[in-house]
């Protein structure tokens, strides 16, 4: 595999000036007020059931640990395709998300299913490596069968004001994903500071070609929150207004129960509308959420909560 450093030919950096001109303001209290109103929505009966199923279909079942093994990844892939025996009509999760060296294993397991293989890349989670290494890692993951790449932005460069670098890096990784993989760009919002930074990083990622923007690696606290996600959804909305193009959203980390996940979904519905209520445009990055959703679904069906011993912990 060859490493080609072709970003100098892209001359994308200049576009960044335009982004800074358009820098949109975010009001912290306004964002938090809106979120508090969204969390007061009440979901009952049919709407709740429909919402829970939608959440399941949008989950990126994730294992990103130093101690990951082939067996562990295979177990997770099995779970992804066999959520619960008592619900044959349940949707599968959207994807299984793994480290690059596990892509082959996951890909082999999932090749006949609709579940996508997603791989983190670009020196996840810190992103502190050379561009060459990041490109190499991305190429390898795509070559081995990753259909989605979850890259991290260079937060250090972002904080030192090198927005062009951040922009170019995303653009190059996107180019290396080609038409084989969709690119999710992780902003790691827990390291960005205030909402204005999150908004700016969202715009840079979107304009550099992200198919999805994603809040967090899950390794830093705070990970995804409702207000942060709202700021990012509004950036997506403005991009849609300006270009007609849709960009996906993936909050990740810290979303472990159905109630919270439903609030995210209501936020998507009321901010971006019907088009985004689809796994092609909205995902949850979570590992333990699926079991809670299953428990709630079973409760809706039987009227009882079951012990969590009845739900497989993979």
């Amino acid at each position, binding site marked *: 595999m060859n490493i080609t450093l072709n970003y100098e030919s892209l001359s994308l950096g200049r576009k960044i000036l335009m982004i800074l001109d358009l820098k949109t303001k975010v*009001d912290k209290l306004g964002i938090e*007020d809106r979120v508090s109103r969204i969390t007061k929505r009440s979901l009952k009966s049919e709407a709740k059931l429909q919402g829970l199923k939608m959440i399941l279909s949008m989950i990126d079942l994730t294992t990103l640990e130093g101690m990951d093994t082939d067996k562990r990844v295979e177990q997770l892939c099995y779970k992804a395709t066999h959520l619960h025996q008592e619900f044959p009509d349940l949707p599968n999760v959207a994807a299984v998300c793994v480290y690059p060296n596990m892509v082959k294993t996951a890909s082999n397991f999932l090749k006949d299913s609709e579940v996508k293989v997603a791989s983190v890349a670009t020196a996840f989670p810190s992103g502190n490596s050379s561009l060459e290494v990041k490109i190499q890692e991305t190429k390898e993951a795509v070559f081995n069968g990753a259909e989605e790449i979850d890259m991290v932005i260079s937060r250090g460069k972002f904080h030192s004001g090198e927005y062009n670098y951040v922009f170019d890096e995303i653009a190059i990784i996107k180019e290396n994903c080609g038409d084989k993989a969709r690119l999710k760009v992780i902003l790691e919002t827990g390291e960005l500071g205030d909402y204005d930074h999150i908004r700016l990083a969202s715009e840079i990622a979107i304009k550099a070609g992200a198919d999805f923007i994603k809040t967090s690696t899950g390794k830093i606290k705070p990970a995804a929150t409702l207000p942060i996600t709202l700021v990012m959804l509004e950036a997506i909305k403005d991009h849609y207004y300006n270009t007609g193009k849709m960009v996906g959203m993936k909050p990740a980390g810290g979303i472990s129960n159905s109630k919270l996940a439903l609030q995210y*979904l209501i936020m998507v519905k009321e901010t971006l509308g*019907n088009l985004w*209520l689809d796994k092609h445009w909205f995902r949850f990055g979570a590992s333990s959420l699926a079991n809670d959703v299953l428990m709630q679904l079973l409760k809706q069906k039987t009227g009882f909560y079951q012990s969590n011993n009845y739900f497989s912990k993979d």
Partner: protein
Amino acid sequence: MSSKIKSLNYNGKWDFSSSIESIENLSILKEYQLFINGKFQKPVDKKYFPSINPTNEQQLTRIAKAESKDVDLAVNSARAAFNGQWGKISGKERAKYIYRIARIIQEKSKELAIVETLDGGKPIRESRDIDIPLAAAHFFYYAGWSDKLKYAFPNKTPKPLGVVGQIIPWNFPLMMAAWKIAPALATGNTVVLKPAESTSVTALLLAEIIKEAELPPGVVNIITGDGSTGNLLVNHSDVNKIAFTGSTEVGKSIMESISGTNKRSTMELGGKAANIIFEDAPLDQAVEGVINGIFFNQGHVCCAGSRLFIQESVYDVVLRKLKDRMQSLLVGNPLDKNTDIGAVNSKQQLSTIHKYIDIGVKEGADIFQLNCELPKSGYWCPPTLFTNVSQSHRIAKEEIFGPVLAVQTFRTTQEVINKANNTPYGLSAGVWTDKGSKAFNLAAKLKAGVIWANTYNKFDPTSPFGGYKESGHGREGGLHGLSPYLNLE
């Protein structure tokens, strides 16, 4: 921004199922009496009028109508209480009663919220999260002042006025009662309060609470009736002050009636507030503020942001966001926890709103309304906005008191200050900008009693509220809300 890009679509794919607040354990009496001298009393002439649920036009209950003799009884009992025990006890003792009222309101908040929604048509979300908590907060806040009046007015000897007559509107029934009664009690006055004809029930529940709190008889009297009852109270010779919240038209006639007497007055009247969006504003939050500014409580808000001014460079994008956000609002049964826009309070108010919408269309403004199905019975008006409006349009000049927004544009700061001040009203205004200096500049130059910066329709008992020009005089809330109830020698 391209106009070819499709509007976002919010409904039809995943809609909320109904989530109705239960009214099973609610007990609303068939008939409510006058509350005079600590007792519920039938009116001398035995006349009653119906209270209508605006969502189905059915009678909810019937309410006693106070005539001349009843008003006499109420004022006399207030006078007797003022000359009696209430006038003698210390501020600290008064505070105990007021705190007690506040706590009982909190305990009964759910019931009060449901009744407020049934009687007035406002969404349960608002009565539960705004009206009732703020009513309790007002009592708590003024209870704290009762024994500190000397510190509030150094080198003065604050003395109560005596008997105050208070007349309140139908848009925030319990909250307005709290705004009136709490400072009057804290300052040692006694009260005769008349709620609005169409929304008397929560005021009478408050009377029950006052009874439960064992406030001495006659300190608070609540008499119900229409404008004629209010008129009797205003013209009663033994009333020392009139505090009125309502329309500018009625406010003017009250001022005429009491001129030449030594009655004091506080008037909180109409408004036609400017909500101003600058190009450097946080636009999504500004749009949310516009929605809260005009569609909160179906626009039945004296300080509603009914005139929107958008700087021309961001006009297209703001309008697009505003229209999309309007499409995600839910209109319908106010007892549904997800309802954003409830019923218009009365048939009469609905016809006023319709009259103005017709005027707007006839004047040539462009109308945009939320495309939604409205319930078959009851009084409903979908959120409405008009564009291509100028200062001389009647919909931009006159108070509509409904969910109707008139949108105009501006180019410079000076221009928008001129336009915003070009109105006989001056109750409130909103400014949306990321630049602090701009917000403070406008706050100084806009002739309105309340200026919100990067927010709208936020209320707090510690903050004074009241108007300039034909929006009234006197302040309610905060330290400023004490002096209208005191003689400061």
